[in-house]
């Protein structure tokens, strides 16, 4: 591990001023991903700004009938919150399908969104990887890894997002609220928080270096059934081969792109009266990649949509 400076933020303003003063800094919350990556020297920040003790862990009702979840609410707390479980079961289930109990007890809302890809080649510092070392190449392309992007990949990177939670947030039209050192507060959909790789796959999100996530806001849940499904070889503690979140007439796919993937073509087809299987197929018209993965996503999305229409929650 590369030596680094450690600062503990006393309040949000302090965190932001520290970040503004130290361009190579990273915010540290639960540390469940960042510290692992630092030990492997994949992340090498000069400064860690510990935001873990800031008062950002509340879950509260919004005036509009939704919920505001503080950036430091742990994944365990969010998943077990009765309001989340009853009104946003797709979110509770998505969170519970990720990591392990121990990790979810540490991992935060903001940190989950900021976790980096688990692409095998990103995780091995000896391998070429444009996300880790820009310009070194992408060894996932032509490699052995199964989990490459179906949507939005570029010639430089085919990595997929590792966050299950963000897929559920995207289908719920959740927004991320951030603040910068200059005091500007901004809200953007979770769906577009993460960048597609383009020619700069090393940049995961469009957050500025001094931009801190304060909260995630959920609008009132859409009417209709909510379904979460995650496909994987082992029953726990492994990223998805593919996942799907359905809420009412909205569909999002996971582990298929560098961001949670709202299946807009599927949604449009459904709105036009298409059958679930046709609607699922519509999204795959724009997909690149291996036939088997496309097939999995088509079957998974189609089945989840059908289940949601039965009011299902699995």
């Amino acid at each position, binding site marked *: 591990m590369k030596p680094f400076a450690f600062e503990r933020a006393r309040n949000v303003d302090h965190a932001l001023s520290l970040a503004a003063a130290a361009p190579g800094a990273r915010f540290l919350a639960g540390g469940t991903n960042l510290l692992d990556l630092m030990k492997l020297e994949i992340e090498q920040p000069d400064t860690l700004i510990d935001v873990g003790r800031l008062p950002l862990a509340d879950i509260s009702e919004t005036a509009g009938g939704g919920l505001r979840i503080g950036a430091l609410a742990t994944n365990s707390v969010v998943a077990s919150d009765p309001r989340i479980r009853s009104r946003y079961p797709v979110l509770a289930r998505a969170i519970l399908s990720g990591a392990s109990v121990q990790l979810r007890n540490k991992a935060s809302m903001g940190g989950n969104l900021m976790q980096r890809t*688990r692409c095998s080649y990103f995780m091995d510092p000896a391998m070429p990887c444009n996300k880790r070392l820009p310009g070194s190449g992408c060894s996932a392309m032509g490699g052995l890894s199964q989990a490459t992007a179906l949507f939005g990949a570029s010639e430089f990177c085919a990595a997929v997002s590792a966050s299950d939670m963000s897929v559920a947030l995207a289908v719920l039209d959740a927004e991320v609220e951030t603040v910068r050192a200059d005091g500007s507060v901004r809200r953007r959909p979770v769906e577009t928080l993460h960048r597609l790789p383009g020619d700069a796959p090393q940049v995961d999100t469009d957050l500025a270096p001094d931009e801190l996530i304060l909260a995630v806001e959920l609008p009132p849940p859409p009417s209709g059934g909510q379904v979460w499904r995650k496909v994987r070889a082992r029953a726990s503690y492994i990223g998805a081969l593919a996942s799907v979140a359905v809420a009412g007439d909205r569909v999002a796919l996971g582990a298929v792109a560098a961001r949670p993937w709202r299946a807009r073509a599927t949604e449009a087809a459904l709105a036009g009266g298409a059958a679930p299987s046709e609607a699922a197929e519509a999204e795959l018209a724009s997909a690149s990649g291996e036939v088997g993965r496309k097939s999995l996503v088509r079957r998974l999305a189609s089945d989840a949509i059908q289940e949601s229409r039965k009011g299902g929650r699995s």
Partner: protein
Amino acid sequence: MSTVRDWAAPNPITENRSGLIGKPVDRYEGRLKVTGTAPYAFEVETPSTPLYGHIVSATIPRGRIAAIDVSQAASAAGVVLAWSHLDVPVQAQRGAKLNPRSQRGSNPALGSDRVEHYGQSVAFILADTPENARAAESRIRITYEASDADLDFGSFIDSAGPAPGEEDARIGDFEAGYSASEVTVDATWFSPLQNHAQMEPCATTAWWEGDKVVVHTSIQMVKGGQHALAETLGIPSDRVHLLTRYIGGGFGGKGQSYDDLTLAALAARESGRPVRVAYTRRQMFQATIHRPAVQMRVRLGADKTGRLNAMALEAVTHCARNAPFVEHAANFARNLYAAPHRLTGHRLVRLDIPHAGAMRAPGEAPGMLSLECAMDELADRLGMDPIALRIRNEPEVDPDNAKPFSVRQLVRCMQEGAQQFGWDRRNPTPGAVRDGRWYVGMGMATAIRGNFLLPAKAGLRLTGDGLATLTQGMTDIGTGTYTILAQITGETLGLPLDQVRVELGDSNMPPAPGSGGQFGAATAGSAAFETGMVMRRRLAELAAGDPRSPLYGEDPMLMDFANGNIVLGNRSESLAALASRAGPDGVYVEGSISPAADARDWSQHTYGAQFAEVGVDSVTGEVRLRRMFGVFAAGRILNAKLAKSQITGGMIWGVGAALTESNAVDPRYGSFLHQDLGGYLAPVHADIVNLDAVLLDEADDKANPMGIKGVGELGICGSGAAIANAVYNACGVRLRDYPLTPDKVLAALEAKGL
């Protein structure tokens, strides 16, 4: 030399009068382990503040180090020294043996500029903290001259050569027998490269006391590690004191020592300080051994009644170019089913990848994934029940060598298993049972694994406080060795368990071969038993010859041992009193066990039957184990709880082999795709919902004086095949490319139009 007849006589273990044998007592060291107070090799107390070593690994698969500069690392913060092959202290040449009786030759670290596999050690950094040692790695400059490397097993399978020193085993005329058979199966299975995935990495703490080095290291075989280090350093083995008290998983991967041992010893000598060196998780994958991939072609020929006429299992596997190893995936098939015409053998591909080696039932574990599924296919083709097919081919004597079986309860395992599992509820038509979106199916397979007894010794001291302390250069790799040795010693001496201590894992103690090949309990345990018997004779003679003993002048042969006393009729005295009169150190004896002269006159194995019920997600191809049950026969059971833990643990590894465990060499780089426990998928709790096993009553009086056999590796045998057969029964697809991951299952479902 004794014969097996000598073992048949009743003895304290077979009589089991105080009931310690078989009793499900808790682990001797369990509390220490679960409270984190059992010191593992990296954690032992050192005589002074230790330094920390970090090993730097090669990033090419084959070639040479054209240039390497460690000077920038050597001058980094906290760094004490940095070595490459240019400045590492002198070690003996690879394989050299100063003492021809050494079990292992020299294994130098950083021995030359040659790189023979990705992940090989190429530099070493010693620093005041592990963090500083690792941080300095980035300051080492290495220029490689890469050579062409053979990395892709698949592209060399057809050009595989013979396994060194081996010929195919042929009985009858396989080809003629096969072609004359009415019903045949000819199919090929593939089991991928697998990793041991121990929790505890290889690790060593070393320091020097004068010209002797003390090493605490994580290793399954005490003598092998001691000898390897002595030969590497070029010193007599009595100057290496090796200790290995607690081991966080071995699975065959710690049957040998690695560079952590060598470099810790060298760095401790150079620095004059204790040194700790541990492999990183990544190095556990790339720089230790692995189970090689195996391709297995099985051909079965039978008549319409299911009687096998011809049987062949031909395996192709791989090893490192300069480290021959054969995964004997075909051997078990020689002893399992009757068939007059038989062919088994192995071919080998040499690759420029890390060393292949022993892992969790080497041979049987991948091997049974083929034959036991081929039997299922044959049963399907014949319209026979898979159990009936196996019973029809149950041999009367070992089909390989016509030797009688010592005891073989395979049929009973299958029948009892079928009854307890509810095999009669299996619908033989694939794809006929649904539960929501899940296809549900059942499968079974048999298990067979050899039983072995190796020479071993033990020491036993009885002290005036009445405590018996067994000492043995044996290891407990998490299996329960400490506990069963205490039970054996207690039962042999008629002592309660709280008066028995067991000390293991020390090269100064009487040697035992260690843990591996499921020979540990039988071997170390028999030595402990024989040593206990030596102690009994010694104590009886002491009592008979001691005027202060109430048993003075009596015949030692008539004396008995019970409840902590030595007894004759209504006279007795405590072992404590007897030992306290013998001197301040009490009474110390040593004993040993050797294989019986005629042990090989019998075919000796452990057996079992595995039953699995799986669900296959009709949408995604995910396979989930719903329940699993096994019945096993493995001689007398020393500890019902620990034996079951061993067996069910093995079954779980079989679940991994069938469904999730797999690694692969990237043919572009020579590195493994998975290098951590988040990517290499060993089963987790959520995969194992309902899994149980029972052990049949058995005593194998040809095995050893206690009639016990190994249970460590039996559970994995056939486990994965039962699951694969259940997948077929569930959804009607035969997948022969392990593990049966969702992508493969889904592709097969789609190919069937499902």
